[in-house]
């Protein structure tokens, strides 16, 4: 039953995303002489979703260390994995746009590099989780790793920004000097919202699987001990 509700919700949010794409399709071809800019309608929401996820995972990890309740660990693990998917999507779509606009697949630009470092770091987190079999130990160690990771992301972002940047300067209106033009930003925020909901659903599916895995582990221990 719960599973069906999840699937239904996933379908609804995917629908909203698709419908938004329809709106995006109707927008002008170029903005401020930048072509293929429509990629950012998924590119930027994916980045937002990823960072929201990494941040939420850190908060959940802190709560886990405070309460020792495994559900917070399952949340942190699931959300990080999903955020990693969106971070990867962000990187790949960004690369395609870079190929169009700059003629190169990759450039060592601040945000690109930070995102890449982020992906590598949280990939390490996922690897760490897979390497530990005992659920409580896994929860404890990966929670610490998640907190270190978030602090690391802050440092990496700031220092790479000082080092070099080539990224399109502030695009969105909430930053000084940004602003794409009337009616152009709203679909992006709607996409962000829909994508975030989709991420929550994916993460909750993953959390349910974490429960299965814990159950399997405890059954194994039971079989082993008696």
């Amino acid at each position, binding site marked *: 039953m719960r599973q069906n509700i999840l699937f239904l919700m996933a379908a609804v949010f995917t629908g909203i995303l698709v419908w938004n794409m329809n709106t995006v399709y109707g927008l002008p071809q170029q903005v401020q002489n930048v072509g293929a800019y429509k990629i950012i309608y998924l590119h930027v929401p994916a980045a937002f979703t990823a960072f929201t996820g990494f941040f939420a995972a850190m908060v959940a990890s802190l709560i886990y260390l405070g309460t020792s309740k495994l559900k917070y660990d399952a949340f942190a693990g699931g959300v990080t994995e999903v955020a990693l998917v969106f971070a990867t999507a962000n990187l790949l779509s960004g690369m*395609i746009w870079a190929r169009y606009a700059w003629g190169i697949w990759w450039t060592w630009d601040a945000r690109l590099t930070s995102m890449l470092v982020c992906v590598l770091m949280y990939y390490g987190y996922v690897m760490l989780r897979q390497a530990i079999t005992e659920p409580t130990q896994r929860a404890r160690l990966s929670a610490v790793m998640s907190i270190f990771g978030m602090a690391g992301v802050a440092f990496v972002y700031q220092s790479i920004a000082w080092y070099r940047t080539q990224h399109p300067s502030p695009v969105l209106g909430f930053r000084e000097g940004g602003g794409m033009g009337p009616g152009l930003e709203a679909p992006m925020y709607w996409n962000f919202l829909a994508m975030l909901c989709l991420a929550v659903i994916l993460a909750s599916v993953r959390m349910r699987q974490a429960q299965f895995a814990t159950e*399997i582990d405890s059954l194994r221990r039971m079989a082993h001990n008696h």
Partner: protein
Amino acid sequence: MDPREFQYTFFGLLIVWLCVAGYALSLALRERKLKAELERVRRMVEKN
């Protein structure tokens, strides 16, 4: 519309969908594997 621009936009957007779909697929596969495993371990415990 410039066909090159259309192509890049198309693939740029598509890749995001592919990532999400790929992950959803891997989730579904893992779900099946876990359920089978759970069933197997449950039976093993019952036998003991």
